[in-house]
Structures are given as structure tokens and as C-alpha cells.
């Protein structure tokens, strides 16, 4: 289980997170919502170790990982799909996927079939360079690449951005599958409300670097929905 307590994060003098707490449990999807610039990405960056935190604790599977390097966190089973895709532009699609092997023991170094079932286009474009793919294809590659790592915690930053509707649906199905079949803990940042609501077991809403509201998935469409929607409008 991932437990985030009271985390603060700064860019120079500017604070992006002010005492954020939330959790993500295996077999559950936790979604983080919030307007632009409220600190969602910053929170994920804190979790995967892209950016150091200046206060609070991040615990994963019982151990404090806040001081660990991103590599060690990856090796502890944290997979990351960043905002903006960040595929390796000059590696082929195959090679991009194979970068996921680094954190795996030797015996498990193969690309799971689910990746190609979910994103058939990747299978067709195995030898094309990642950077040449279309925006949506790159997004699919980024998700596929994280799946190759077979993580126990999957951190997704707006994974539906730029993806065609039919595949969004597939991604939704995939997340459900990963959650229930593979028992993964999933932390999902999402702007696309309906998509988030369909998947969420838990949610939290951020504003100006703080968690301002949280609850269970079903609560997203209930009496609390108007309040929730208010946090998402300007």
C-alpha cells in the first residue's frame, strides 16, 4: 500500500504541494482530480522520485521510500506513465518497450501479450522510432512500456490525453483488469471526469497544492458530485 502523509514539495521558493496526504491500495484505483496547475503532476513526481520533497513521508509496502532514487523506486515495483508521454524518441517501439526489462529479474524479460491486445498499433509499428509516432500512439506506447515492468503500483498522469475514444475505452478495461486480476495499486490523475468516475475506487481532489476533498468512487456520482464539480470549474 502507498501512504502519502503530509507531503510538501517546492520548486525553488514556490510551493506546489502543501501537506498532501492520500493513499493507494493494491487492487484499487485511486484517482486524483483538480484543475490545471493545482499540483497533481507534482504529487506524482514526488511519488516516483522525480522531484525531492521538503516535508512529509511517502511509504510504499511499509517502507519509507521518500529518500530513495527513482531507480530504486522503479525496482520496488512502481511504474510511471508521465504527462507528456516521454517515450524515448530514437528508440524503436520494441526498444522502448524493452526498457521496461531493466527492473525485472532475468527470467521475466518478455513483453506481455496484453500490451499488444490492448494496443494493437504497437504490434504493427514495432520497428518504427518512438518519436515518429503520432501523439496518441506515443501515449499508448508510454502505457504499454509501464505495463512491461509489471509494476505493483502504477502511477498514471492523464493517460487518456490525445487518445481516440475507442482506445480510451480499452484503457479503461485494461485498468480494471490490472486492478482486479493483477491486484495492482493504481494511482490515476485524470481530467476526463466520466472516465475517472467509472474507474475510481477512491478519489481525492486537489486545489492549490492541497487535498480539498476525498472519498470513495461511488461518492463521485452522488450528493457530493456538485461540490466535486465545483472544484473542477473555474
Amino acid at each position, binding site marked *: 500500500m502507498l501512504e502519502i502523509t503530509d507531503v510538501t514539495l517546492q520548486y525553488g521558493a514556490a510551493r506546489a504541494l502543501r501537506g498532501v496526504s492520500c493513499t493507494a491500495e493494491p487492487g484499487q484505483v485511486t484517482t486524483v482530480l483538480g484543475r490545471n496547475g493545482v499540483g497533481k503532476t507534482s504529487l506524482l513526481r514526488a511519488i516516483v522520485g522525480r522531484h525531492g520533497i521538503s516535508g512529509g513521508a511517502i511509504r510504499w509496502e511499509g517502507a519509507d521510500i521518500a529518500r530513495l532514487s527513482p531507480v530504486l523506486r522503479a525496482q520496488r515495483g512502481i511504474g510511471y506513465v508521465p504527462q507528456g508521454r516521454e517515450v524515448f524518441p530514437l528508440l524503436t517501439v520494441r526498444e522502448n518497450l524493452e526498457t521496461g526489462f531493466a527492473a525485472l529479474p532475468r527470467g521475466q524479460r518478455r513483453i506481455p501479450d496484453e500490451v499488444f491486445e490492448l494496443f494493437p498499433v504497437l504490434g504493427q509499428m514495432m520497428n518504427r522510432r518512438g518519436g515518429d*509516432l503520432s501523439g496518441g500512439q506515443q501515449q499508448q506506447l508510454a502505457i504499454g512500456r509501464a505495463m512491461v515492468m509489471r509494476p505493483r503500483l502504477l502511477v498514471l498522469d492523464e493517460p487518456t490525453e*490525445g487518445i481516440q475514444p475507442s482506445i480510451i475505452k480499452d484503457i479503461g478495461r485494461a485498468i480494471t483488469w490490472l486492478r482486479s486480476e493483477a491486484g495492482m495499486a493504481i494511482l490515476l490523475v485524470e481530467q476526463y471526469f466520466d472516465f475517472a468516475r467509472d474507474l475510481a475506487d477512491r478519489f481525492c481532489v486537489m486545489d492549490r497544492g492541497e487535498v480539498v476533498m476525498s472519498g470513495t468512487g461511488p461518492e463521485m456520482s452522488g450528493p457530493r458530485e456538485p461540490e466535486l464539480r465545483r472544484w*473542477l470549474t473555474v
Partner: protein
Amino acid sequence: MSRPQLLLDGVSRTFDGFKAINNLSMVVDKGELRAVIGPNGAGKTTMMDIITGKTRPDSGKVLWDQRIDLTRMDEADTARLGIGRKFQKPTVFESHTVEDNLRLALKGGRSVWATLFHRRTGPENRRIAELLDLIRLTEARHRPAADLSHGQKQWLEIGMLLAQDPELLLVDEPAAGMTDAETMWTAELLKSIAGDRSVIVVEHDMEFVRELDCRVTVLHQGSVLAEGSLAHVSAMPEVVEVYLGR
């Protein structure tokens, strides 16, 4: 009758043997708002690259205002003709402040001498304030663009596009990374611009496209699969098959 602002005729482009654009033809009238949808990799962004002169087509014609051949122009030329573009992946000038990003985009002299002797004017300042307000970055106006979040950069790009005041706006996925409410608001904004200006929008968010309420072109494998109202195209089984899904 309306005059075609932009005409693509039989445009093709191949990358290493892969046909990204395949005999694509399309007409956009002056003042028209047009939505372009289609699966990932259908060639939407590449089409914009061709219109703006970033990519040269292997064959086919691209006509601006019925007479100017865009395939011979480079990016700066097309921008000067009045074609503005927002990119799928937000790209802003990171070491400039938000305000300066807008100022640099603002319509005006683009030559070396003009910029060397440029002075700020009252109207210019007012327009900047207006735009900042519109994209809700007034507070961040003095921050370097590098410090913005992903979504904020999207907004800044939209602001820069508006600042250019172009004849034709090419808008690649404006709603990505926006909340639903912002998405709707953006749709309103684009609708209000159309009429005066021509607009081509690429988006995967069907709610947004519905809100635009305009003619929709569906691209698939580099050519037009269907064209018509959203209701019309989304009822077509091919479109459902390759794009919308079940």
C-alpha cells in the same frame, strides 16, 4: 457564396514507405469552423504540418485563398500569411515570461528592424491584459513559462494563437488536459472566433466536438473517411469501427 480559404487537393506524403497522408482532399471555407477527428495516427497532425509548411507533401496541391501555393512556403511564410497554429504538445518559450510569450506572438512587425526598434504601446498593453485574463494566467504573467504546469502551457499556447490574430487557426487538441468545464468553455471560445476567422480543430473529445456543432471530417489512414455533421458521421459503422469503438 462562401469562398474556400484553404483547399487540399490530392495531397500525399510518405515516411519511409509508410503513407501518412494518402490522396487527401478537403476544402475549408472562409470563416468556417471545421472539426477533424480520426484515429491515432490517421494523419491529422501531419496534415497541419503540411498546411503550415513544416512538412512538404510528395504530391498534391495546397491552396490558400484560391491562389497561393502553400507547399512552397516555409513555416514563417505561412505564419505571415495568417495561419496560426497551436501544437498538440504544448511548446512555449520557456525562458520568457508568460507575458513576453504573448507579446512575441502579438500581431505586428516581424522583421529584424521592426523588432530592434519596437516600442510598447498602450493598445498593445491592453490587448495583453485582455488575453491574460482570458487564459486565466494574469497572476502568472511574470513567471517564466517553464514553471507552468502542463495544462497552463496549453492555455498559454491558446493565448499565443489568439494574440497572433490569424486568418486561419489550426488547433490541435485544445481540450487535452482540461477539465470538462474548461473544455466546454474553450468550445464556446472557438465558436465565437469562427465567422470572422476560419478554424480547424482536431480533438478526440466527442463532447467537445458536439459542442462545436460544426461540420466534421473524419480522417483515416491519411484520407477522408467521412464528412458531415457529428451525428451523421458517428452513426456510420466504419467510423464506429475504427474510431469511436463500442
